[in-house]
């Protein structure tokens, strides 16, 4: 180990964390050449592949390595929170209709495609270079959306020439599609407010309807990770790097292999932002159609969009010295403190908005980043509830039960494509996200602002 590991958790969460190989993976990550500070893990940490899910690692920008496994297959998997002018009580009766419209209009499940016409390769390359600006220029959303997206929805350094033909091919038809697994689109009601002043600035109040979208870069991102792992698996020998797990394959940041991956990763990140932006725009149309109202009455407004599978070049103070690093966040969210220039001006004084989705039955949280996160975690926090039950176990537990009815009893309407996915994603398969969020709140690495309760969920 080149640095120590540090896990944020309570004794109760730690008992769950110790049940699988997640702690061993924190140790493995600490072997990355150039890693600085700590190999960090957030309270939603669980066993991933290579990196633990919930892992954060900063590496020196000059002497460190970049690890595609530290970003994950779903590059820039992330979440956005959208607010509306609606009150939950006003739409209660029309919720089934709304859920139907969202499910019909947003392609989900395997091979989902056709949300927008098939792209030409030239257009896809433009999209991958420009990110959210491409979506806005093509009629999906407004300029304000870009301002309220991490990196303004465009990660610098994107070069489509770094993408393989296969990656480009897989991306042609998937813009605006949800995918499967833990991805979802949810209609929520704001249930509780912990920081009234911050909520007020964000324009959020109790009873208001909000939407959460969780998805990533689809096949283009998956292929980009796969391509890079192959290249880096071979390059490790050349650079005399030995890692305890092949999934942690990496290459020096300034090397040709490292640079190529970063250029491709930025393209995939941009693709993911466009994907969520387009889905938000389609969701708006579904709302307008189902509720028969004008865009002004509906008032769709992006609060913020965060990525939780990414590597970013950032400057952090480490041991009193300002250093340029690349921060890998694998199932972890950026949580920059108040005043940071990367935060949109309108909310800069509050700290960066951070969205932590929970399971589909209980609740999700909006938090803000803190100064303490800047000091302790390279401005990072948790990303979700974290699984407590394997997919296999969850399916066994769900056998013979009417899961849709169980969710309905919790006040959640569900529309889904895959029965298996639905069973695997049931609330009992996850930790209580409130426990996870309480840890980061008490540790001071982010601050709870709002709790949201799901009303309707769309899953692949």
């Amino acid at each position: 180990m080149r640095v120590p590991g540090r896990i944020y958790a309570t004794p109760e969460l730690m008992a769950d964390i110790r049940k699988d190989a997640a702690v061993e993976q924190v140790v493995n990550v600490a072997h990355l050449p150039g890693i600085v500070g700590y190999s960090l893990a957030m309270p939603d940490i669980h066993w991933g592949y290579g990196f633990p899910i919930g892992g954060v690692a900063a590496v020196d920008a000059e002497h460190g390595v970049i690890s595609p496994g530290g970003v994950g297959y779903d590059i820039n998997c992330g979440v956005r929170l959208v607010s509306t002018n609606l009150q939950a009580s006003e739409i209660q009766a029309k919720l089934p209709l709304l859920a139907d419209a969202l499910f019909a209009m947003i392609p989900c499940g395997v091979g989902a495609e056709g949300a927008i016409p098939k792209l030409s390769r030239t257009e896809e390359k433009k999209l991958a270079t420009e990110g959210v600006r491409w979506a806005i220029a093509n009629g999906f959303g407004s300029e304000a959306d870009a301002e309220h997206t991490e990196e303004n929805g465009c990660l610098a350094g994107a070069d489509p020439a770094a993408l393989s033909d296969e990656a480009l091919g897989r991306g042609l038809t998937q813009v605006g599609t949800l995918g499967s697994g833990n991805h979802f689109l949810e209609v929520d009601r704001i249930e509780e407010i912990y920081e009234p002043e911050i909520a007020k600035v964000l324009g959020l109040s109790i009873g208001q309807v909000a939407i959460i979208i969780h998805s990533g870069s689809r096949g283009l991102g998956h292929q980009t990770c796969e391509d890079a792992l192959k290249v880096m698996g071979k390059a490790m020998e050349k650079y005399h790097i030995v890692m305890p797990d092949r999934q942690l394959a990496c290459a020096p940041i300034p090397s040709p292999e490292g640079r190529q991956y970063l250029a491709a990763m930025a393209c995939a990140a941009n693709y993911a932002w466009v994907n969520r932006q387009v889905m938000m725009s389609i969701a708006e149309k579904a709302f307008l159609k189902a509720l028969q109202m004008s865009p002004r009455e509906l008032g769709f407004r992006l609060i913020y969009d965060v990525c939780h599978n990414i590597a970013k070049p950032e400057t952090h103070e480490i041991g009193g010295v300002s250093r340029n690093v690349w921060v890998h966040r694998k199932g972890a969210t950026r949580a920059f403190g108040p005043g940071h220039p990367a935060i949109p001006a309108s909310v800069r004084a509050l700290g960066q908005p951070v969205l932590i989705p929970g399971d589909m039955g209980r609740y999700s949280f909006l938090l803000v980043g803190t100064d303490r996160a800047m000091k302790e975690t390279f401005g990072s926090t948790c990303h979700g509830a974290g699984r407590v039950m394997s997919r296999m176990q969850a399916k066994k537990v769900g056998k013979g039960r009417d899961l849709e009815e169980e969710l309905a009893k919790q006040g959640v309407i569900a529309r889904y494509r895959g029965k298996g996915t639905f069973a695997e994603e049931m609330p009992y398969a996850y930790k209580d996200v409130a426990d996870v969020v309480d840890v980061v709140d008490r540790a001071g690495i982010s601050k709870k602002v709002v709790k949201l309760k799901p009303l309707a969920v769309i899953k692949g």
Partner: protein
Amino acid sequence: MAEPVFREIDHTADIGIEVEADTPGELFQCAGLALLSLMVQPQGIQAREVREETVQAEGWEQLFHDWLSHVLHRFLQDGFIAATIAVLEIDEHHVHARLIGEKLDYERHEFETEIKAVTYHQLSVTCEPGRCRARVIFDV
């Protein structure tokens, strides 16, 4: 000869399988069908389309990884799901197989979940005469 068998590995976030077979051909065939069965219930998949696929790589481990990735991509990109797989040729550097099946139809098939990728995490493949084993974890 024993029938090739696979077991699911109880991984928290993702899905893994362990496969055992007498020959490399059976190992690859069984793993391919196992991967597909995690995504779609095998019952009711009809023999409507025949595809021949070749995958090349260096060494059993990489070949096994790339073979499964290939089967996965055919499914993710074209929705093609095999009911049977016959490995026609195989050595440490290539596999040539015939896949018979059809495209996923949500009306007729029971879709379980989407697998995003075949990972290298704890990947192991050993092929000895009369005994082949593999362990692989998929990203869900």
